[in-house]
């Protein structure tokens, strides 16, 4: 473990990459999830189909396969498109950007299901009452839908976040210098992969434990005034 401590700078910089990757992907996945939920619940049949295709397709394929497809395939597709239209020269997708886009897009599908379930859980009468009281659609969303949606969505949202944090480890496979990549590289160079992997496990454990506590606090806040069964 002394050697691990000597390599602390590499480990810490990797941890920061992992955390920022997770947070940025989370933000993107919330956007994708809201878009997906609204598509699935829209009046138009065609939009519903698009939303359903998004959520079922993404959720049936392993993250790693999608990540490789988007990173390697997306690179080629982007450059072919650039060559065909002449709009841009050769671009190389940065691993961090690819990671955020892929994780955000994948977890958006899970978030869409979470949000849809939460919106459906809001009693319809409340929305009707809000409209009858003369609220604008925007006001209905901010005052009635959103606060309750958060309450219903939180348990499943928390779960998605924990799965997302663990999925960030996969981005090391496409070469992002995150916690796992750095630890494997350092561990290989000193032939002590076991100690380094244990350190990585502990760091992930700390991240999940902290998010566990934080999410429980948020849950308590948002369920203020709820009667516990």
């Amino acid at each position: 473990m002394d050697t691990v401590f000597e390599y602390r700078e590499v480990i810490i910089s990797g941890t920061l990459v992992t955390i920022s990757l997770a947070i940025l992907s989370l933000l993107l996945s919330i956007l994708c999830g809201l878009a997906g939920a609204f598509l699935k619940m829209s009046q138009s049949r065609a939009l519903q189909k698009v939303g359903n295709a998004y959520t079922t397709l993404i959720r049936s394929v392993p993250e790693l396969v999608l990540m490789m497809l988007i990173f390697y395939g997306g690179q080629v597709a982007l450059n072919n498109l650039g060559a065909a239209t002449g709009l841009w020269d050769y671009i190389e997708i940065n691993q961090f950007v690819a990671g955020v886009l892929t994780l955000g897009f994948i977890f958006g599908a899970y978030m869409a299901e979470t949000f849809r379930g939460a919106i459906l859980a809001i009693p319809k009468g409340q929305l009707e009452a809000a409209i009858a009281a003369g609220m604008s659609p925007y006001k209905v969303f901010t005052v009635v839908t959103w606060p309750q949606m958060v309450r219903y969505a939180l348990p499943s949202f928390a779960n998605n976040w924990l799965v997302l944090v663990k999925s960030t480890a996969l981005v090391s496979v496409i070469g992002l210098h995150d916690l796992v990549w750095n630890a494997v590289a350092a561990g290989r160079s000193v032939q002590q992969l076991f100690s380094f992997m244990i350190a990585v496990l502990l760091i992930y454990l700390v991240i999940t434990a902290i998010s566990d506590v934080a999410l429980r606090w948020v849950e308590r806040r948002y369920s203020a005034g709820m009667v516990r069964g």
Partner: protein
Amino acid sequence: MEPERTFSDYLRSFSEGASPLDFMLVYDHLDRFFYGALVTLELTFLALALGGLLAIPMAIARAYKTPFLNPAIWGFTYLFRGTPLLVQLYLIYYGLGQFETVRESFLWDPLLSSPWWCVLIAFVLNSSAYTTEFLRGAIETTPAGEIEAAKACGMSPFTRMRLVVLPSAFRRALPAYSNEVIFTIHGSAIASLVTVQDLLGAGRWLNGRYYLAYEGFVTAMVFYMVIVFIITRIFKLAEKRYLRHLRARDTTDAPALVSQP
């Protein structure tokens, strides 16, 4: 005179030239994908079966708060559920070789030096941790009346567990279990990272061999989708059969039944 072209020649030239995906190339190597699918399914099935067997006693110990065992098992499940499967796999596959004693032990040659066995060990431990937790939830929510009735019938604790608690807990755990099965299949894709030739491994092999960007991954993706689709269907049928008592009763043709002579 131009030589006559058969339909398959035409298909091949279309696939190589005009189509965005060279599907004929995939078709030529389809056996690799089927073999990969077999490896994926085999790993998933073994991980679930062995993980499930480990999980049943652990879930019982957790649900009944057995002293010493309960906190120990909690620590085990927290560790395995709170960390990425990839790191657990690396720990077992790359990490254990750090120790001389492990490398010289009898376990090294057949087991721990082989990627397939390391993958299986990591998957079994991981799956048993998840299964333990939702099975514990299912056991804890057994209706008190069922247990009282079993006691009143004079069942011993073991019989009670075998005939009353576990069968009803398994039923309640069924929807959660379908998720676990799908997550295990998804997780199994990382086996290809330690050189196991599973479905994703076949896709990566094809892409690497012919220097392609999509074909291998897209084919693997389609295979995974089909597998997940079939498994979801099977679980829907199982839920229909085993959770029949929980379904809302179909009352549409009830009056007709009453008016029958």
